[in-house]
């Protein structure tokens, strides 16, 4: 029942994530209540301000509403967790429905972007990594490896800026759309035309987002292919006189197994990248929302999203772990 154990182990990890998130808010020297009130008009009297501050502290669970005594760290965490479990991060926001709605409209955009980028990265890196791990053209291989290192040094925001400048009409004539998810007025088009429009708008953002992951996956696959090619079962197969094509197929199948875990570990990279990509290409996703929230000093929104992203990443890690285990029985859980 390894998967049950793995799923149960998620509980302490989830608690850990919530503790880190809460500690970040709570231990920050800036007083959240004061920060929140700074946006409100301060025309009121000193007494009204003190009352508002008191109300805000009660709402944040910082002080006891009856006595006005400050809670201890543990109590504050427990109170915050009670809200967080019910996905009620909006304790400080004036309109909880709007708060949730903003996240749920932004989430699909980021998920679409990340999904297409993962697919693109896998499609590029599997053949390339296999060829680099098994191939015999050593000079060409070394050249491609160097090229990969070069490409890996290009940060997303740099690549995105260059693509916007040269392909989306910054400096050269625009070949591809470089802003938004759809052309203006495309709502009235036929469905196939809308899909094509969406695909055209996705090319540049996905290319920007997928570059780093593709290079990283290629390098991982190159290593795992080379490792598979030198393992004992290859010697055994050759000793049995199995033909070279079959041996090669076995090597590739074994070398592909770490792909499952690798895709899981890509998730944090993709989320970080999507922040930048969404800003550059003007896509209304989670990263864009986070940037706006940070600019507006909207702490509850930022923390809710940090926690959301961390939980999604944890789920991704666990799923890829389970997948790896299912694909490769040699991996005993807990002994890696």
């Amino acid at each position: 029942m390894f998967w049950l154990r793995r799923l149960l182990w998620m509980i302490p990890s989830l608690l850990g994530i919530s503790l880190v998130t809460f500690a970040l808010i709570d231990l920050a020297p800036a007083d959240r209540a004061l920060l929140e009130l700074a946006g409100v008009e301060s025309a009121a009297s000193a007494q009204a301000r003190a009352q508002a501050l008191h109300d805000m502290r009660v709402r944040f669970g910082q002080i006891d509403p009856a006595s006005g005594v400050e809670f201890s760290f543990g109590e504050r965490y427990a109170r915050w967790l009670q809200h967080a479990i019910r996905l009620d991060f909006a304790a400080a926001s004036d309109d909880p429905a709007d708060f949730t709605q903003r996240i749920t409209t932004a989430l699909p955009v980021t998920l679409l972007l990340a999904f297409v980028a993962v697919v693109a990265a896998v499609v590029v890196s599997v053949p390339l990594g296999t060829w680099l791990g098994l191939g015999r053209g050593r000079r060409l291989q070394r050249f491609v490896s160097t090229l990969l290192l070069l490409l890996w040094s290009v940060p997303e925001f740099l690549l995105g800026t260059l693509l916007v400048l040269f392909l989306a009409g910054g400096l050269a004539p625009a070949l591809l759309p470089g802003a938004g998810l759809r052309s203006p007025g495309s709502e009235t088009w036929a469905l196939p035309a809308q899909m094509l429009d969406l695909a055209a708008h996705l090319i540049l953002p996905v290319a920007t987002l997928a570059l780093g992951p593709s290079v990283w996956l290629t390098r991982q696959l190159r290593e795992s292919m080379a490792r598979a090619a030198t393992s004992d079962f290859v010697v055994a197969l050759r000793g049995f006189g199995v033909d070279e094509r079959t041996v090669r197929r076995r090597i590739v199948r074994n070398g592909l197994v770490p792909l499952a875990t690798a895709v899981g570990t890509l998730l944090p990279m993709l989320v970080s990248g999507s922040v930048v990509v969404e800003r550059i290409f003007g896509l209304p996703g989670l990263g864009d929302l986070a940037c706006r929230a940070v600019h507006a000093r909207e702490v509850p929104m930022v923390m809710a999203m940090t926690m959301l992203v961390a939980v999604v990443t944890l789920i991704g890690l666990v799923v890829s772990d389970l997948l790896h285990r299912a694909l490769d029985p040699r991996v005993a859980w807990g002994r890696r």
Partner: protein
Amino acid sequence: MGAPVTARRWAWVAFLVLVACGALAPLLCNDLPLVARTADGFRFPAFVALRGMPLPPPDGATWKEWWAALPDGGPQWAWMPPWPWSPNEVTPNVLAAPDLRHPLGTDDTGRDVLARLVHGAGTTLLVALGAVGLALLIGVPLGAIAGYCAFTWIDTLVLRVVEVFLCFPALFLALSAVALLGGSPLTLILVLGVVNWTHFTRVVRGEFLSLREREFVLAARNLGVSSARIVCRHMLPQVKGAILVVAAFGAAGAMIVESGLSFLGLGAGLHLPSWGSMLAQGKEHAHAGAWHLWLFPTLALATAVLSLHVLADARPAPPYKRCSSLATSGGASAPLPSGSSGG
């Protein structure tokens, strides 16, 4: 294995130039004289400015005007920095293309791009090296303890904590920290250090898992050497190379996050010049023909990150990887493990 020797040498040169520029930026590019002989004795405005505001010159509004107005061969003189422009010095010629006066041009408020690039190296380097240092201090001891006590409850605990921190994407955590604490180099160092330590822990633990089974550890233990001494004096020196690789990759990653945040306008602070914010500015003014505004920050950032990646990649392959000729000697397709990447 890894990058060729010439590439490694150039990477060292680029990295050391970057370090030198970053560390000496206030003395290399500044509008204050290093040494000034005024009517009332010697003054050192550039050095005083490192700790606070320097005193104004005896006459004239700024030190630079005082310097420009000095007569030749008089009793008063000044020794200016090699590049007498400060990164925040506003001049009337806005968005000037590169010429002899400003070899890399000026930006949209007429500030010298070369001076801003050199000072930007300082900001980037401070964040990158600070973050890696902090990550090293947290990650290596935890990884060593977990690897030495492998498969005990201590190991499990460390692995769980690593998993928790693995779930926070660096840029996102940095964003929330900037929202809460405000953007400053210290904030970025703290956040990136807290995000990056897991890499050190995982690598050190992994290396320790195989090291603890080796004969020299067994021998030391049988001689009655204490566990702390075995870890510090016998095992840790063996993983030095792996730690350096992780450190180089971590520094490159921290640089990317720092400039990415600055690009979004949320970086180390608005008053500090940074490559990321320069690039954002360049993107804004690209269609106005100001190509120098995006080209030079791009080159600087790409060179810095690439040099660190090459240094990390240039690690010699560990000895156990070299004797993998068992399968390759007989087979027709002779596959060799190509390169030694540190993922």
